[in-house]
């Protein structure tokens, strides 16, 4: 029942987003959003019931009931829809609410594509969590460096639009800003230099990192979806590459997690693929690494944090979870030191996402700045002959940043794995050894 699951997921998303809107924007818009989403949900439910009543396969199909439904509930629902539209709620948020259920259904349909049944759930969770959390982090509008650097880079960029891809950024006259390679948004912005920017460009610029992060997700889904389509016995090159990659990732993380951690491999694997894709986007012209923004990396780290706590509670129980934080005391001395250990462990748990996000953010930002500096250097080298393009001085660093992007994605996923392993019950291995020995004996 894809539809029922989608409706349930939409309900959850609506509640979360509505609360976030009420907290960050204002309650009227949140109301509009929730009302739109609720109406859309009812609409979907009505049509779903109609289709089920009229469908050919069910014996419970009842055309009379369907007609009654269409005659009574339909006008009511659409009347309510018109009332909503006339009620003077914020139209943009109303439409966003309407669109939400379609978005969720589309995302779920995309998720169904993914290669392995084991992968599907994790990938859907990751994609949904990203779609949810990234905008929230961006909404918080923290004064993070990347936003300002983008802005300043755009300003510096406006002078030399017509040069080739290698622009000199961040000259001495600019205030502090780190150099940054131009991306498609900076180009668009430069096109409107001196003129008033259209409203959509403001939105795009504000949500730049989110858009690029979504692009990374779309790239991944398209890539692996197309690879999964041809499930040939003798794999073609694309399927072969995808299978080798997924198999390698699966084996690697399963080796770290141990046999009891098999359900968490999809999450960690998708995380790694997603982060590596985002890191490598900075090396492609006209694109930008979304992970050069602390918002993106922190949203990912928050996902990891919540998931790890969830695993800890579900696998250990609430009491076991707290016992784990107290350092698993066994005697009087242990319980005494638990008073000291408990706050420390809790604090350490909250420091983990901060260190996780800062590491990824700093590395990728540094690597992109390195590229931009050398591009700038290449341009200044040839600037005295007014050459439209610069020397490709950044080439060796492209190789380096490819390696760095891979390693940082791996490190993020590996640390997530280690956090998960730390949360899993510790005496699992003994149990398994005990359980498996007689089991094996019985078989042979």
């Amino acid at each position: 029942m894809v539809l029922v699951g989608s409706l349930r997921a939409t309900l959850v998303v609506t509640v979360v987003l509505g609360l976030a809107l009420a907290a960050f924007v204002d309650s009227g818009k949140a109301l509009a959003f929730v009302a739109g989403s609720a109406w859309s949900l009812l609409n979907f439910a009505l049509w779903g019931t109609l289709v089920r009543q009229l469908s050919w396969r069910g014996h419970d199909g009842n055309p009379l009931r369907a007609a009654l439904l269409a005659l009574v509930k339909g006008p009511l629902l659409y009347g309510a829809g018109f009332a909503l539209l006339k009620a003077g709620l914020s139209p943009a948020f109303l439409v966003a609410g309407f669109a939400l259920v379609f978005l969720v259904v589309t995302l779920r349909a995309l998720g169904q594509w993914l290669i392995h049944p084991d992968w599907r759930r994790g990938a859907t969770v990751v994609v949904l969590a990203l779609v949810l959390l990234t905008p929230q982090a961006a909404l918080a509008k923290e004064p993070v460096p990347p936003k300002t650097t983008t802005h300043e880079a755009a300003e510096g960029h406006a002078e030399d639009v017509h040069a080739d891809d290698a622009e000199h950024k961040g000259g001495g006259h600019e205030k502090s800003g780190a150099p940054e390679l131009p991306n498609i948004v900076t180009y668009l912005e430069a096109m409107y230099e001196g003129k008033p920017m259209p409203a959509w460009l403001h939105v795009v610029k504000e949500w730049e990192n989110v858009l690029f992060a979504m692009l990374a997700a779309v790239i991944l889904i398209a890539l692996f979806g197309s690879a999964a389509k041809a499930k040939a016995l003798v794999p073609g090159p694309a399927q072969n590459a995808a299978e080798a990659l997924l198999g390698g990732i699966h084996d690697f993380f399963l080796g770290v997690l141990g046999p009891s951690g098999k359900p968490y491999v999809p999450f960690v694997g998708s995380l790694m693929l997603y982060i590596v894709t985002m890191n490598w986007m900075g090396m492609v012209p006209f694109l930008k690494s979304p992970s050069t923004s602390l918002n993106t990396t922190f949203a990912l780290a928050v996902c990891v944090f919540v998931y790890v706590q969830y695993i800890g509670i579900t696998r250990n129980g609430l009491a076991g979870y707290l016992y784990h934080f107290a350092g698993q005391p066994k005697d009087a001395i242990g319980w005494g030191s638990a008073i000291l250990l408990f706050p420390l462990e809790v604090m350490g748990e909250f420091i983990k996402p901060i260190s996780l996000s800062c590491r990824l953010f700093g590395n990728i930002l540094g690597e992109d700045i390195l590229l931009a500096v050398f591009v700038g250097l290449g341009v200044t080298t040839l600037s005295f002959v007014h050459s439209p393009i610069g020397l490709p001085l950044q080439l060796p660093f492209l190789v380096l940043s490819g390696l760095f992007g891979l390693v940082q994605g791996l490190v993020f996923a590996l640390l997530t794995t280690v956090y998960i392993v730390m949360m899993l019950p510790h005496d699992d291995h003994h149990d398994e050894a005990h359980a498996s020995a007689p089991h094996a004996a019985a078989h042979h």
Partner: protein
Amino acid sequence: MGFPNFATALAYSLPLGIGLAAIGSGIGLGLTGKGGLEAMGRQPEAAAKIQTAMILGLAFSEALTIYAFVTMFILSGKIS
């Protein structure tokens, strides 16, 4: 503004701070890599496990420089 002001002090100390952090984590990275490679050379069959642990260690020691780097970015806006 007089000479010994906050901005000047920052302009001198930020690169210095990153350099100092880089010295420390460079030593740490070198030691980790040395240990990992020696262990892998001694026991090539355990290379995968050692490599995982080594990468983790590298990540942790490298993070210290990254913290200095992030601090530099937060503070570099104040040099005007």
